[in-house]
């Protein structure tokens, strides 16, 4: 066994090196991506990601009657569609499913102990799993965001749309929506990762957050800031209050500038991930109780 001992000693010496951690993160991400994209559990994620495309596919085939469906209105239509369906529902529940299952799913499958019995820091495990969830959600939901916009613009207004995206503001808006999608995955992902670590039935906290995010327009300005949606709304290329009225009970608050909202969300995400790492460090495996 001397050769193995040499290898083990060599890895022991480098147990604090970034190189080792990066190798381990890469290995964890590889394993998790397979599960996220190829397991039976991923079918639901694909369905969620495709969900908003179905009405747009119908719209692409059958043009609605009336003058409302005009090229000049498409930006507003997409803003409402993106905000109401893609951001608040698809990305929210998609992230809930992906990130909660990173740990909770493995507890249910009784396979988490294989990670816990590997020579890997639990913090590295959290980083690897979070990163895999992030890649999965960003790939799927950014694709949804982009394809949804294409389906809205191009089938009925192809030449105008081509000009809009190559010469006009179209590309900028598309990138802004894609960026919001990514940021939403970062923020919601961290939240749901932690929920999956602390709560045995994560559906309840997910629904509570869903309600809180929907009621955000009613909240006083200070409370609005304790949410993900407030910061994401602040980044919308077409402000929502120009498109829809939120009713007489809505409390109007100034949008937070991007240079504050983006770093704030990233900072809170890091704090949440530190909490997840702490929790994982002290976690026990007792499948009978899960």
């Amino acid at each position, binding site marked *: 066994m001397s050769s193995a*001992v040499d*290898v083990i000693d060599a*890895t022991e010496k480098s*147990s604090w090196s970034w190189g080792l951690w990066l190798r*381990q993160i890469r290995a964890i991400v590889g394993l998790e991506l397979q599960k996220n994209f190829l397991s039976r559990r991923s079918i639901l994620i694909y369905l969620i990601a495709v969900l908003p495309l179905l009405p747009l596919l119908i719209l692409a085939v059958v043009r609605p009657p009336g003058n409302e469906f005009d090229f000049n209105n498409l930006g507003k239509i997409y803003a409402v569609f993106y905000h109401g369906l893609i951001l608040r529902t698809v990305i929210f529940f998609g992230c809930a499913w992906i990130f909660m299952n990173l740990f909770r799913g493995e507890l249910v499958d009784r396979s988490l*102990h294989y990670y816990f019995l590997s*020579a*890997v820091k639990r913090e590295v495990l959290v980083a690897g799993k979070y990163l895999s969830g992030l890649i999965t959600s960003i790939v799927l939901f950014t694709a949804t965001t982009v394809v949804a916009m294409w389906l809205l613009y191009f089938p009925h207004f192809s030449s105008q749309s081509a000009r809009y995206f190559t010469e006009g503001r179209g590309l900028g808006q598309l990138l802004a929506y894609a960026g919001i999608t990514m940021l939403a995955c970062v923020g919601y992902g961290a939240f749901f990762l932690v929920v999956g670590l602390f709560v045995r039935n994560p559906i309840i906290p997910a629904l509570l957050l869903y309600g809180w995010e929907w009621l955000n327009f009613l909240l006083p300005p200070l409370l609005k800031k304790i949410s993900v949606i407030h910061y994401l709304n602040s980044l919308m290329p077409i402000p929502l209050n120009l498109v829809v009225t939120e009713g007489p009970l809505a409390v109007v608050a100034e949008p937070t500038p991007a240079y504050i909202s983006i770093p704030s969300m990233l900072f809170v995400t890091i704090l949440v991930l530190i909490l997840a790492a702490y929790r994982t460090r002290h976690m026990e*495996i*007792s499948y009978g109780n899960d």
Partner: protein
Amino acid sequence: MSEPANQLIVFDNVSKFYGEILGVNRVNIQIAPGITSLVGPNGAGKSTLMNLMTGLLRPTRGSITLLGIPTDQPERLFRKVGYCTQFDSFPRGVTGREFVSSYLFVHGFNQKRASELTQVALERVNLVDAADRKVAAYSKGMRQRIRLAQSIAHQPSVLILDEPLNGLDPMVRAETIALFRKLAADGLHLIISSHILHEVDMMSDRVILLNNGYIVAEGNIHGVRDEMEEHPMQILIRCDQPAKLAAYVFGQNHVVEARLHDDRGGLFVKTRDADRFYLLLNRAVSEGELNVESVAPVDDDMSAVYQYLIGSSGGSA
């Protein structure tokens, strides 16, 4: 125990409670290299002790170190430790080879080294031919072996095995026990839980008997038996004049019972002091009083110790 602490597994006053339910209580043991078996009925605390040893559970009180490494540092601990649990579950969709190699990648081994170590581990458990089949299609014995391969693949110095012989057919069982013996001869710590007492007898250097969360006895199996003064040692002497031998030994105060064998070709003797009895027997033989064919302790094995201490047959298979 003469080994330094960094070569021992040390439990220092360890207790584990699940809420109000006792897992194990006040465990103080030091385990040296070799094969150590944890024996006890269901719910005795064997798996709890193993899960504590590997950091899957945290002690409510006390501390545990393996080769000087605390169990809350998995990144150091599992360079030296492998654990084959009883959980018969696997990540979905993997082949045997992928299952073993993927966790070597997580350990930090590169592709080439992980492939080499995977191959060695698969060969050791005789699973090379089935390595590229999905684990979901494996039999129970094959699943047991692939988990064993996964736990030894990184070539640890401490190997902890929870009921590792479960589900194995007799041939593979024998091969696996031989593998354990070889690993122990290489200087590894092997901690094995088992309820198959004759196999514990065959392979263990020492045993730890658990019952209701407490350590009932520990040490070399014969040493444990010797210390059980309330249960006199039973010895069968096959000889030409068992009745004469019975009369010869019956006057000794350490002999509590002498009974002829049913075939009248031997004598069962129960003694509180086996050493003194053997001296007595030697004297009888040397004086030409009788011809002895064989002498063998009847209840100096794991099964008897288990029965005396824990009070059941222990489910030996």
